[in-house]
């Protein structure tokens, strides 16, 4: 297993420790090139597809490719048992590092134990795991809720009627964003009436839920949504509801809507979970395999933007009608992909 060491770790601009008391892991240095696997869970939404594309594109960059002997990505679906099995399989196959988009935050003890036995590095990304024995990179979901909530307070005031559209019930990301949001809007001095509906992070469901809420509850002063944001905007338009401040996800279409309707009152704030996390995890894995210390949990800044600061071609892509997540670039990590570059890749593996 890794040794727990004191910081600072390698490349602190990129691998920012989660907090001041985050510990550092160090593995014995190993000869490259390495065998690295990504174990994805669910596939069949754009975020995951974009993530896979990013992983492949990143692994193909010359400066990374030289350190990689074999790179595999598998998607196991939502089944946790299958995900554990796949990770264990790659450990057994002798892969040096396995990057995981975990299906659940708990239940990793066994694979961590095995990985430590066999000297395999595990790094979780996208969703956090509730253990300090596994390395991870993550965005702070609570902060997303806080930022989204704060932005609404800034643009709506301390009182009014808010619509909160939640994600898929039972997921920790849903709960954390919700908690963050509520911590702001239910904080001291706040006097909001909040209507809460479920949008399942999907535009269709969000649209329906928003439409219903408007029909039954009349006027809202602001909206906080966790995903499927463009569906919500659509519902506003359809219902003839005046545009109001919205905190939403990082979908390109939402950002296009923000740009388009800004002057009509759609004051949009967009925070995003970035599919490019996987690249940071990969970069971190290589660093760790080379023997450099890394933080147990790396905090990835939340790429946010709003209707005032948004820049076409950087934060969103008005000509691209494709459906993807716009937040992708992390300059401190030397990550400069734009989403169109990624999505325009061919599906073939050889590049």
């Amino acid at each position, binding site marked *: 297993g890794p040794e727990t060491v004191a910081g600072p770790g390698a490349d602190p601009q990129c691998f920012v420790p989660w907090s001041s008391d985050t510990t550092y892991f160090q593995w014995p240095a190993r000869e490259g090139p390495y065998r690295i696997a990504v174990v994805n869970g669910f596939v069949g939404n754009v975020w995951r597809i974009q993530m896979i594309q990013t992983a492949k594109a990143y692994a193909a960059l010359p400066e990374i490719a030289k350190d990689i002997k074999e790179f595999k990505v598998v998607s196991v679906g939502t*089944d946790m048992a299958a995900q554990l099995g796949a990770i264990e399989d790659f450990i057994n196959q002798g892969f040096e590092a396995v990057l995981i988009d975990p299906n659940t935050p708990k239940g990793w003890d066994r694979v961590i134990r095995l990985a430590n036995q066999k000297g395999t590095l595990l790094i979780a990304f996208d969703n956090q795991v509730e253990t300090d024995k596994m390395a991870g990179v993550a965005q702070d979901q609570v902060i997303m809720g806080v930022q989204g909530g704060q932005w609404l307070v800034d643009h709506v005031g301390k009182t009014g009627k808010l619509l909160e559209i939640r994600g898929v019930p039972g997921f920790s990301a849903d709960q954390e964003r919700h908690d963050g949001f509520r911590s702001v809007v239910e904080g001291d001095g706040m006097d909001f009436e909040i209507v809460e509906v479920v949008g399942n992070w999907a535009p269709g469901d969000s649209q329906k839920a928003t439409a219903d809420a408007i029909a039954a509850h009349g006027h809202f002063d602001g909206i906080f949504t966790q995903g499927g944001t463009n569906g919500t905007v659509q519902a506003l338009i359809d219902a003839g509801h005046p545009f109001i401040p919205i905190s939403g996800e990082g979908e390109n279409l939402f950002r296009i809507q923000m740009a388009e309707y800004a002057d009509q009152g759609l004051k949009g704030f967009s925070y995003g979970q970035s599919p490019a996390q996987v690249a940071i995890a990969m970069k971190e894995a290589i660093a760790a395999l080379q023997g450099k210390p890394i933080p147990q949990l790396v905090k990835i800044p939340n790429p946010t933007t709003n209707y005032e600061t948004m820049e076409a071609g950087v934060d969103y892509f008005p000509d691209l009608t494709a459906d993807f997540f716009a937040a992708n670039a992390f300059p401190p990590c030397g990550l400069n992909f734009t989403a169109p570059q990624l999505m325009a890749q061919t599906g073939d593996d050889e590049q």
Partner: protein
Amino acid sequence: MSNFRLWISHNTGALIAVVLFLVLYIFYSSLHPRGFTTDLLVQNSNEALALIFVSIAQTLVVILGGIDLSVGSLMTLVNAVASEVVIGTGPEIVLGIVICLAIGLAGGLMNGVIIVYGRLQPIVVTLATGAIFTGLALLVRPTPGGEVDGDLSWVATNALSELPATYGWWDSDPGWFNLVSGIPMPIVILLLVILLVWIPYRNSELGRGGYAIGSNEAAAYMSGVRINRSKLAAYTLSGMFAGLAGLYFAIQTGSGNADPIQAGTYTLNSIAAVVIGGTSLFGGSGGAIGTIFGVMVLRSITFCFRVVDTDSAVGFLANPLLQPMFEGLILVIAVTLGAARAFSVKNRLNMFR
């Protein structure tokens, strides 16, 4: 026909699954860099056991000629509960396990009672009760988490050798133990369950009644088969297997997760596994053993994706964006193999059942 030929002809479906599994698994383990080892077996059996239990739960209902869309949800409910109760002192853990199985049984019994006394179709009843189980699971466990005894989790997911080692049964292994110590615990658990639950059920009047009902319910009734009792028994036992799945899942992951999407995946996979394992969706034939291999076929398909090399002849299978497509394709082919009788039928009238 000789008895052997009769046996073959009565078990063709299951035998196809066995062959399919062997082909896939040999392909997988031969491509595996470390080859076939105990570790591999442990890992593969861990991965399969929960699905096996859920699929056996499904099998019991399919034998009756029904279909159960709630097995995955019931498993999830028990999983959620297990993450709260399977922890603490030894007796507490045992009590927790009993509670989990009891919830499984109760869920199955509830399905059975509504279906039998409401005289409703199982597919729609379980569609509804599945939603209820999911709702209850979300109540118990709004977010993933909870905890399950770590030792139990470690023992249940490793080779048998870890059992005495973890609980300190003996200082040095007795000779006979070395013979079996490499067997993965999931396989031991499965064998025990098959031996203690499935085989007795299969050879009981209630169990045979289930087959009779699936084969021809009216004839079974006229023959004096205890219809209600057999159905209730089958659903209840099915619930228990779903419960076992949820329990093992909790033990394996050391936590609970009321994930409705995962529940749906388990339900649908269980149907596929049952069919691939040679149990007819019309009821009356098949069984748990075939289903086990049905699950192994399903799992082996995904195993293979992990070992294929980009540069090999089947390199396209290594492309993560193509894999889901091929997974579906192979699934379609496997169920077609498992279920299609159209080509062997000489008398087309025999196709209509």
